[in-house]
């Protein structure tokens, strides 16, 4: 089969600059939206995925397994658990049992009100949540109203460099707190929180119950905690693994995720149809040219390949532009929502998805117009635009 030279396709692109710009823009828009939707889903899921550990079990109030913030358990639960269960993670004589309070509260920082999840912890929390690292500053000390700020929380309150927040004062329920350090948690949900001393938070919030106790297992099994919760009816506990808890949380936010994806898909369909329209018009006006090429001896398949090449080239330019915008401007973009804070992740997979979608658009966008151009018999095609 005699093929049309590749230059034929590239030179054709410059025949109508307006059409070229329009097609590039619409394919770019479609690819960008596909990447945003993908980045949103991957970012949200990645945050929830790295937040849980299969070796950590959360003990919450019975009937509150969907939300740790709703849960309330007695202050003595941590001690009872540590004394009742063998095989918990232990370091330097400290057992991996972390009593915690999780509470969403408005904080006043630089004169502005922000809503942040505050976690009241004891030092055991660093043993249980082993992905947590203090990257700057020091841990909050009891009785001093000190706070650790998550990397993403710092960004949501307006600081590009989290370290800048150290030493800043925030107002929490009329009490003054000082930020003494920055914490990182491998991109987990904790990076969107603030940590303080358990007793300080209890005093500020006038609370005499815990939200949960997180237990790190070593040789003990999750079923040991289930049995403990079932046998100690007086404590009104339910045991759920961290992985399971975050998976339930992910299910809870699924409708919102789907809403975002559906919106992006709908805008993408609009852009796609506009792009198809332009490609269609561009090819339809070239019926006579296609007829001429056939009289010169080029087979229909050769012409079809050239038209697809042309369409792929245009869509690829749009896809590359969209990928560049996504990687430069949107990668790491912080999104704050009820579940906490997460970032749009434009990783290699999402870029591959974007480029792949662009190439697919090029192929799909050329098929119908190319068929229309090529289905006419040669004499009719030559007469078409006379």
């Amino acid at each position, binding site marked *: 089969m005699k093929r049309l030279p590749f230059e034929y396709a590239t030179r054709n692109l410059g025949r109508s600059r307006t059409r070229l710009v329009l097609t590039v823009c619409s394919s770019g828009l479609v690819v960008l939206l596909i990447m945003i939707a993908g980045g949103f889903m991957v970012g949200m899921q990645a945050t929830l995925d790295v937040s849980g550990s299969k070796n950590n079990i959360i003990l919450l109030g019975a009937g509150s397994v969907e939300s740790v913030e709703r849960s309330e358990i007695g202050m003595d639960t941590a001690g009872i658990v540590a004394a009742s269960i063998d095989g918990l993670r232990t370091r330097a004589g400290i057992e991996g049992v972390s009593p915690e309070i999780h509470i*969403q509260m408005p904080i006043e920082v630089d004169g502005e009100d922000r809503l942040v999840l505050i976690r009241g912890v004891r030092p055991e929390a660093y043993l249980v949540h082993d992905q947590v690292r203090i990257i700057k500053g020091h841990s909050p000390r009891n009785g001093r109203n000190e706070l650790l700020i998550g990397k993403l929380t710092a960004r949501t309150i307006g600081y590009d460099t989290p370290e800048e927040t150290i030493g800043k004062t925030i107002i929490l329920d009329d009490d003054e707190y000082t930020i003494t350090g920055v914490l990182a948690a491998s991109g987990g949900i904790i990076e969107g929180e603030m940590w303080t001393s358990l007793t300080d938070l209890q005093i500020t919030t006038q609370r005499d119950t815990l939200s949960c106790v997180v237990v790190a297992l070593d040789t003990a099994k999750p079923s040991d905690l289930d049995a403990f919760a079932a046998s100690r009816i007086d404590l009104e506990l339910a045991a759920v693994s961290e992985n399971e808890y975050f998976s339930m949380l992910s299910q809870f936010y699924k409708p919102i995720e789907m809403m975002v994806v559906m919106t992006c898909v709908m805008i993408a369909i609009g852009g796609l149809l506009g792009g198809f329209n332009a490609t269609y018009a561009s090819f339809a006006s070239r019926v006579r040219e296609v007829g001429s090429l056939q009289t010169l001896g080029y087979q229909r398949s050769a012409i079809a390949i050239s038209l697809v090449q042309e369409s792929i080239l245009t869509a690829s330019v749009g896809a590359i532009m969209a990928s560049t915008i996504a990687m430069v401007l949107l990668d790491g973009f912080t999104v704050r929502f009820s579940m906490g804070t997460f970032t749009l992740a434009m990783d290699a997979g999402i870029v591959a998805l974007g480029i792949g979608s662009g190439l697919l658009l090029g192929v799909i966008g050329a098929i119908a117009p190319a068929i229309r151009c090529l289905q006419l018999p040669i004499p009719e095609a030559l007469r078409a635009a006379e």
Partner: protein
Amino acid sequence: MRLIKVIPTVFKQIMRSPIRSFLTLGGIAVAMFLFVMVESMRTGVREATQATANETTLVVYRKNRYCPFTSRLPQYYGDRIERIEGVASVVPMQIHVSNCGASLDVVTFRGVPKDDITSAMAKDGTISDGSIETWKQRGDGAIVGSSLAKRRGIKVGDRFKAAGITIFVAAIQETSKAQDRNVALVHLPFLQEAARKGGTGTIVTQFNVQINDSTKLQEIASSIDETFAHDEHPTSTFSETAFVGRAARDIVHLADVAGILAWGALAAVFALVANAVVLAMRDRVRDHAVLQTLGYTGWLIGWMVLLEGASIALIGGLVGGIAAFIAVRIGQFTMTMEGVNIEMASGPSAVIAGIVIAFALGLFAAVIPALRLARTDIATCFRAV
């Protein structure tokens, strides 16, 4: 008269390129679907959060708290609030939700005292099935809002479990207020005991306060907060709409962001119509020359172009708008956050606005191509072939 006579010709022109017309119509329909959905959401948020002149309901919440799990006020505050001048009635309420976060299909329980049930129901609320008497007789009875009942497929006599609470459906409440259509009203002591470890006895989440004079709303709110300013549990009092706006701030923020999408959808309609008309004009230069030789004036041809743009936009707008309207009516989408519900407005105003705007944008997008064509003489048209 000729202006009307050309209408069938315009439709024939549209039908001449069915695939391209379908692509344009499809694009416009999708854009208008999105626009109407977003506008319905924004209208729902506006209706729930915009203050009205005759507002007479105040919500007393724990100061510096947003989530119903963290707002705890002693129930005896109710008696002290009742003594404040201008207060007509006070209903203590315990709120219990499956999750404080913003999402769809969250179940909200409101615990109210047995004697206050009529005040706790919506002002226009009616019992469509079951009875208040049955509710009063059963400690675990619930009056379920019609939207919640429909969404979860529950009916009178059913037992229903959500957020760790199991209730008996005693009645279904029908009302125009989204807040009440999406909650289950239960007995306050039942919820207090069922919701928290060891029960919470005399602790409630909030007080709903009815006042006599809507002009004194702020004054009474300030009086309530001053009364408890130095207590162990200071309060923040808001009008009901302000309270919803504050509690559902993520949804309000989402609606603001969605507003940008609505503008984007309109821009897409404009671009699609303009693109379709410009492409069609280029392809039909010869036809226009022929029309002019047959006696069609430049302005009449321009009028036909205008009609073509407006018709495509109108048909696309109708398809997308009606599809969105049906989706909103059937779906009855409700977003819940911190125990407050915001429903997408299912009235026809967003659809009508969408269709009118699509028509106007179609006309507007076709104006320049129409003017250019109207000013082009026959010779130029023939030379362009």
